[in-house]
């Protein structure tokens, strides 16, 4: 009996090459050697995945969490605490007229870093740190909406297309090919120009809908490969319904690759939103975004380059971090896929 258990342990180790031996084994004691039902790849906790990351990827994850936290903090500040949290008002013009005291502010515009304004102030003497933190909300929202649209709608469509095949697939992919036939930015600009009011809702929805085709392609390719695997054939052989196979066999296997792709796609979306706001075609002013901060500060690069530098650095680091994490998960999921 003990021999059986070690056998199964060895089996698990072969099965999941990344498993740590020290961890407890998920197998219940077997009385006789039948089909080892408990044998499955150990699911890693988020902390376990984090620990196996290279240092650079770890730093990227921390940076992304920081950006996420900033955006939530900014929204809490506005919506719940009415600006009572320790963070300057992003739209307060410090040299503007203050109706309460009846005086004009004394702050000089384009001020350098100080304790009061760690990243300095912009051309209208607004606190840059506060603007950057409030700007993160726009980038995060657009990225999250696009990932959700892509993974839920694109992932579902692609999984269906790859598994069901036939006319459904041909029709669906032909429709998506038309969207992909446009250069992405031009189509986006044309669609955006239709809307008179460019709220955050409209911007993230348009970008979200336009991200669906690429996700569909990725998940279709994976679904195609998975549909030919032995466990799908086995499920078909015992008469499992199509939808059940799709739900229990195809989609859970498409998802890891798709989520890895989502990271890289989110990086592209953050750049696209930055581009739009740089062109003045994203959410309306005075809402700060990283892109419009860069655009507003670029006229003054002869006086003070730092006001362009900070938002540019934040945007670039975010894109870099998303790419790093996406690459890490892509390597990881392709490694797992090959070892299955």
């Amino acid at each position, binding site marked *: 009996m003990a021999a059986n258990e070690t056998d199964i342990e060895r089996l698990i180790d072969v099965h999941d090459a990344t498993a740590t031996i020290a961890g407890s084994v998920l197998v219940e004691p077997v009385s006789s050697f039948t089909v080892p039902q408990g044998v499955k790849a150990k699911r890693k906790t988020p902390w376990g995945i984090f620990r196996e990351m290279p240092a650079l990827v770890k730093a990227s994850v921390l940076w992304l969490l920081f950006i996420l936290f900033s955006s939530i903090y900014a929204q809490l500040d506005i919506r719940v605490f009415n600006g009572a949290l320790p963070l300057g008002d992003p739209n307060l013009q410090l040299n503007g007229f203050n109706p309460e005291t009846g005086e004009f502010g004394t702050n000089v515009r384009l001020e350098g870093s100080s304790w009061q304004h760690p990243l300095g102030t912009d051309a209208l003497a607004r606190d840059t740190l506060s603007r950057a933190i409030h700007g993160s909300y726009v980038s995060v929202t657009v990225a999250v909406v696009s990932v959700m649209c892509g993974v839920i709608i694109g992932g579902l469509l692609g999984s269906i297309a790859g598994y069901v095949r036939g006319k459904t697939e041909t029709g669906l992919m032909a429709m998506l*090919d*038309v969207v992909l*036939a*446009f*250069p*992405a*930015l*031009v*189509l986006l*600009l*044309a*669609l*955006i*120009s*239709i809307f008179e009011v460019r709220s955050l809702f409209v911007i993230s929805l348009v970008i979200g809908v336009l991200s669906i085709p690429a996700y569909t392609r990725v998940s279709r390719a994976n679904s195609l490969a998975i549909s030919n695997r032995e466990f799908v054939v086995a499920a078909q052989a015992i008469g499992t319904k199509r939808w059940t196979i799709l739900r229990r066999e195809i989609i859970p296997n498409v998802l890891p690759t798709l989520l890895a792709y989502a990271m890289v796609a989110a*990086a592209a979306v953050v*750049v696209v939103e*930055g*581009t739009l706001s*740089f*062109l*003045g*075609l994203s959410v309306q002013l005075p809402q700060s975004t990283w892109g419009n901060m*860069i655009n507003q500060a*670029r006229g003054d*690069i*002869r006086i003070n*380059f730092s006001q*362009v530098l900070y938002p*540019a650095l934040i*945007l*670039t680091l975010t*894109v*870099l971090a998303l*790419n*790093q994490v996406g690459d890490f998960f892509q390597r990881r999921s392709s490694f797992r896929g090959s070892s299955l």
Partner: protein
Amino acid sequence: MIKTIAFILLRLIATLLAVTFLTFAMVALLPGDPVDTILGTATRDPAVEAQIREELNLDDPFLVRYGNWLGDAVTGDLGRSYITSQPVADTISQRLPVTFQLAFMSIFMSVLVAIPIGVMGAYKQSKWQDTASSAAVQVALSIPNFIFGIFLIWLFAVQLGWLPASNWNRFSDGVVDNMRTALLPALALALAQMAVFSRLIRSDMISTLQENYILSARAKGMSDRYILFRHALRPSSLSLMTIVGISFGALLGGTVVIETLFAIPGLGFSLINAINGRDILLIQGITVFIAVMFVVINTIVDLLYAVLDPRIRRK
């Protein structure tokens, strides 16, 4: 062979129809009346209004209007701007050479830089040269082009004062003046492409270098440099050609931000101006033109591929 080409051409026609239809529908189904744009919403003469409606065929059914518009577009008539009343096709043909030059220059520069970087990465695989260049490529891929553009302006125009920060001199005004204004924008566009190209060349070369004919060339005592650039690079030229073609098509739309940043009178800049001025027909014209160019260029790449690579032909 002929079957393949026929299929590609058929697909081209279908895609073109779909793309033009989508662009037309996007604009035609827009809320708001073009007559309002032309005459303003103030009091107006019903006779004039009826005449304009007649001229623009605004009362025809949707599909008829699409047919008419497509027929005109094929003959090079994209209508007149409601705002400047300049023919849209004229605007495009004036602006196109500028965008074309930028796209061409940036592709040229990125290929020139990407080949040595990619070849070195493959040759010194997993050594420090490879690690360093891969890291640089990663970073280059993550810098949005408008940010790199501003950095270039800051460095070369503000700090060093070597090149102008914006503006554009036409090619006919003198090659040197033209190059001085075109260099920075082309460089800004080239960065990301350079990264993509060198990544592609590296991964292509790594698999090529494991082939037997490389081994036999080495056994004959040929120099590494000769093998790398004469023998190993050649098979990569096909995939390089593909990506160059696709990038060129994408650049026609991708120059939008850089043209705006450097105030260059190209297609992208006029698209942004049209959007800001709500010049609907100009938006439609430029969008459809860029999309058609994009589709056609991608098809040409497909065709060349089919002609040059016998493996595709057989499928």
